[in-house]
């Protein structure tokens, strides 16, 4: 798939960094702390960026008499505008979490039994080094894989590449955003990315399909959403659950789960048949429009009604509403998109609908991103790869580009094909809840000779490790620079604001030490991470000292909309917006999305859907004392009529059994009118099974445990997870 090229970053011109260049001479003098932070007196405010989720908001940490007091948003930061989300505000709790990992651990009984010996860092590294050398000799370096999530994984990625393995993955692709990125890249030649390039702030009509902004707290999006509400933007919400966003909407479409593509096709057919699209934009930038029209115009609202349960008139009215405000009409692409197995095509339909509205590249639609160009550290070249990654053998999923399929690496670990995987490094991702079907994860782990988990808390996946390495939390460490693509280019720094309470260490230190033990020290030529960051920043004529003081350095604004001079560039094979995709046709897929019906739950069963709460991130934050105080268990949302039929009272605990007979933890019933009768809902991340997470062990139920079934997206290998059905088990 070389026709799908990755984003090209705009380089910041010389003029933009003139101020920084003046300061470059002083770049070598670091603000050296006279003594340990914990011994200082008075109030200190130190900038950094947040790690409670992956949005990376700029933050200011307040240290009062050497103690971490609070974290606020950095007003200079364009992502937070000085306001963190509830998780970010609760970030201090990550430092104080009593359940944190405190020292390196080596397993002393069977994997998963969570029996450990406390060891020194040196002993832990010796253990890891010995196994890594053995695996390299017996199987080759390719047989070690890294699963990581978040910027903290960057030094371990470097270690794995230096070691010689191509197997490096994050569940954020095949278990989350992947289908969306593929659908958009096939259409516009570029991904949506993170932070999403959605111009919610300026949109006049916002359509949310399953995106529950306000419960899902990606900070900038929520801030912009509230501004859209204030400006009176028309909001259309499509969700089987009456979400918080639905309560702000002009139109709420209570869709039957699994039928979103039918709605999208009907909307497109109305816009096409009534000629409500942006004709000028399409003739200028589009290709294959006639073939597209011939395909979608047959999907009537009456047909879609049968699938979706949405009244034909409501489908018509909302299609006209979104067209009325074009091009400032944004159909949000969503984020966690692995739902039903045809997710890349559904995402492509969302992209095509936006293309009809002319919103890509336009104000109130999708803006063009900019990011600060900072050269990479001048490392020696990585060893030449002798084998390809195991994630996608024979290119089975031809559009799995850019990032690797985590479940593909898990599969190869189980089967040993195309070659055995014998070592896993897991950084900052609880694979037990990130990957579907926990049994397969456990089965894969049984085949490993080395399983290392790096984390700040004893996550469930840490319980399966041979070696657990306790990491400093973000407030205690440096990480790599944040240069996320956004409306304006900026660089942000994460730096320690307080010392570790115990024997925790930063990830960069671990990667460097392991490298030195296995003879790869030359790949970590810097003395410490400050030297690494300084080298990178100096190459961009920036100063570490200035960045440490300000937290954020911005580049001047550049145009972000076509109408303001942003250059339209579509990196598709045709160089245009592909209404009809020849590359999909050539690969044997629908060149224009088509509807496929998904199975309904059998009688007595309900589709299990899941989502986010504003105060937690995945299964990472449940033991944070501040966030736990806000929400310490999840609830099962059950429609009032269903609750009555099954005799379920509000507040009682029940268990759920899925189609494969798997029974959940007990979970509290929330009887509500705010959900359809054919599905039940819970917030993801609870029901944790790690006994070392004393404060959250067994609290609530885990959707992941019930997701034994998953459907694979044939385009890109994404694992759809909204395909599980559950029934109630009363004897809790």
């Amino acid at each position, binding site marked *: 798939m070389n026709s799908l090229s990755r984003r090209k970053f705009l380089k910041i011109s010389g003029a933009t960094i003139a101020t920084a260049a003046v300061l470059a001479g002083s770049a070598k003098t670091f603000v050296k702390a006279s003594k340990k932070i914990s011994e200082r007196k008075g109030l200190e405010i130190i900038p950094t960026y947040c790690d409670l989720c992956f949005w990376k908001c700029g933050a200011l940490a307040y240290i009062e008499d050497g103690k971490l007091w609070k974290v606020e948003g950095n007003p200079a930061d364009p992502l937070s505008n000085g306001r963190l989300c509830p998780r970010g*505000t609760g970030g201090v709790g990550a430092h104080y979490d009593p359940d944190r990992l405190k020292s390196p651990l080596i397993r002393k009984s069977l994997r998963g039994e969570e029996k450990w010996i406390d060891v020194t860092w040196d002993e832990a590294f010796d253990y890891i080094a010995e196994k890594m050398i053995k695996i390299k000799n017996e199987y080759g370096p390719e047989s070690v894989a890294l699963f990581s999530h978040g910027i903290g994984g960057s030094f371990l990625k470097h270690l794995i590449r230096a070691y010689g393995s191509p197997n490096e993955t994050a569940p954020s692709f095949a278990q989350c955003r992947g289908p969306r990125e593929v659908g958009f890249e096939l259409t516009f030649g570029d991904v949506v990315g993170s932070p999403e390039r959605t111009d919610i702030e300026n949109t006049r009509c916002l359509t949310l399909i399953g995106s529950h902004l*306000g419960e899902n707290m990606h900070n900038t999006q*929520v801030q912009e*959403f*509230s501004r859209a509400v204030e400006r009176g933007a028309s909001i259309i919400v499509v969700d089987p659950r009456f979400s918080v966003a639905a309560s702000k909407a002009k139109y709420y479409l209570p869709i039957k789960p699994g039928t979103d593509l039918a709605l999208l096709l009907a909307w497109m057919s109305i816009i096409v048949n009534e000629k409500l699209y942006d004709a000028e934009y399409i003739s200028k930038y589009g290709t294959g429009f006639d073939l597209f029209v011939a395909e979608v115009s047959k999907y009537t609202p009456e047909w879609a009604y049968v699938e979706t349960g949405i009244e034909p008139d409501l489908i018509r009215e909302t299609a006209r509403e979104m067209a009325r405000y074009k091009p400032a009409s944004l159909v949000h692409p969503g984020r966690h998109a692995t739902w039903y197995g045809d997710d890349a095509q559904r995402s492509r339909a969302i992209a095509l609908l936006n293309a009809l509205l002319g919103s890509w590249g336009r104000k109130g639609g999708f803006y063009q991103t900019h990011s600060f160009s900072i050269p990479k550290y001048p490392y020696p070249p990585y060893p030449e790869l002798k084998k390809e990654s195991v994630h996608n053998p024979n290119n089975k999923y031809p559009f799995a580009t850019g990032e690797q399929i985590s479940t593909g690496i898990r599969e190869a670990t189980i089967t040993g094909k195309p070659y055995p995987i014998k070592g896993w490094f897991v950084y900052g991702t609880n694979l037990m809840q990130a990957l579907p079907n926990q049994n397969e994860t456990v089965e894969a782990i049984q085949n490993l000779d080395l399983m290392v988990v790096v984390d700040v808390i004893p996550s469930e996946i840490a319980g399966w490790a041979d070696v657990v390495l306790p990491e400093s939390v973000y407030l205690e460490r440096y990480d790599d620079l944040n240069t996320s693509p956004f409306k304006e280019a900026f660089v942000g720094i994460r730096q320690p604001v307080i010392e570790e309470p115990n024997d925790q260490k930063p990830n960069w230190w671990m990667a460097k030490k392991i490298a030195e033990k296995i003879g790869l020290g030359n790949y970590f030529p810097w003395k410490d991470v400050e030297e690494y960051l300084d080298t990178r920043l100096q190459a961009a004529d920036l100063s570490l000292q200035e960045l440490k003081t300000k937290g954020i350095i911005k580049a001047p604004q550049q145009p972000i909309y076509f109408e303001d001079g942003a250059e339209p560039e579509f990196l598709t094979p045709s160089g245009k917006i592909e209404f009809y995709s020849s590359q999909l046709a050539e690969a044997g897929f629908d060149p224009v999305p088509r509807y496929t019906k998904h199975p309904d739950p059998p009688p007595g069963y309900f589709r299990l859907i899941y989502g986010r709460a504003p105060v937690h991130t995945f299964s990472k934050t449940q033991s944070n004392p501040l966030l736990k105080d806000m929400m310490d268990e999840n609830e099962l949302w059950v429609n009032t009529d269903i609750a009555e039929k099954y005799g379920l009272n509000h507040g009682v605990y029940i268990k759920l059994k899925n189609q494969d007979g798997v029974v959940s933890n007990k979970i509290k019933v929330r009887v509500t009118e705010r959900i359809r009768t054919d599905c039940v809902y819970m917030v993801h991340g609870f029901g944790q099974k790690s006994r070392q997470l004393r404060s959250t062990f067994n609290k609530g139920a885990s959707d992941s445990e019930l997701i034994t079934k998953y459907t694979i997206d044939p385009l890109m290998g994404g694992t759809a997870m909204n395909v599980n059905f559950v029934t109630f088990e009363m004897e809790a």
Partner: protein
Amino acid sequence: MARFGMVIDTKKCVGCQDCVIACKTENKVPEGHDRDWIVTESHGKFPDILMEIRTERCNHCSNTPCVSCCPTGASHIHDVGGVVLVNHDLCIGCKACVESCPYDARFIHPDGYADKCTFCIHRVEKGLKPACVEVCPTYCMHFGDLDDPNSEVSKLLQSRKYHVNLPEAGTQPNIFYLI
């Protein structure tokens, strides 16, 4: 004299609890207690639902049962902005005020005194906004002088519909919810 109050836009609030957490860190509110909290009310039958989300706290009422009932004078009205405060040193933890507050805004701090929202008077007197107002990612909370007709809060009340909590309690609350 100034009369401090809050005007909160329920159309924008998403119930994220950021205000609650910011209050907890700012004011070192002990685990298990909160000075502010979220209420979500919904009415109707799916899918025709009306929902209001509110952030609630001490209403810094103009007619204060909590001050009248306090036997020691610990509960008092501050001379700046009419803010209702508790003097920790005078408080004997008798709970009379906790019982008398119709909004259930007070609790007994583990250190033995009645505690509740202070409108972050320590910040306000420095020219800052209350922590909850300052953190809210939807910018739905506004703080200011209700007696000043030109303040942001007064202008919002002039231009929008609003309600207060439990008007029938006769407490003359100073927190207003825009609807």
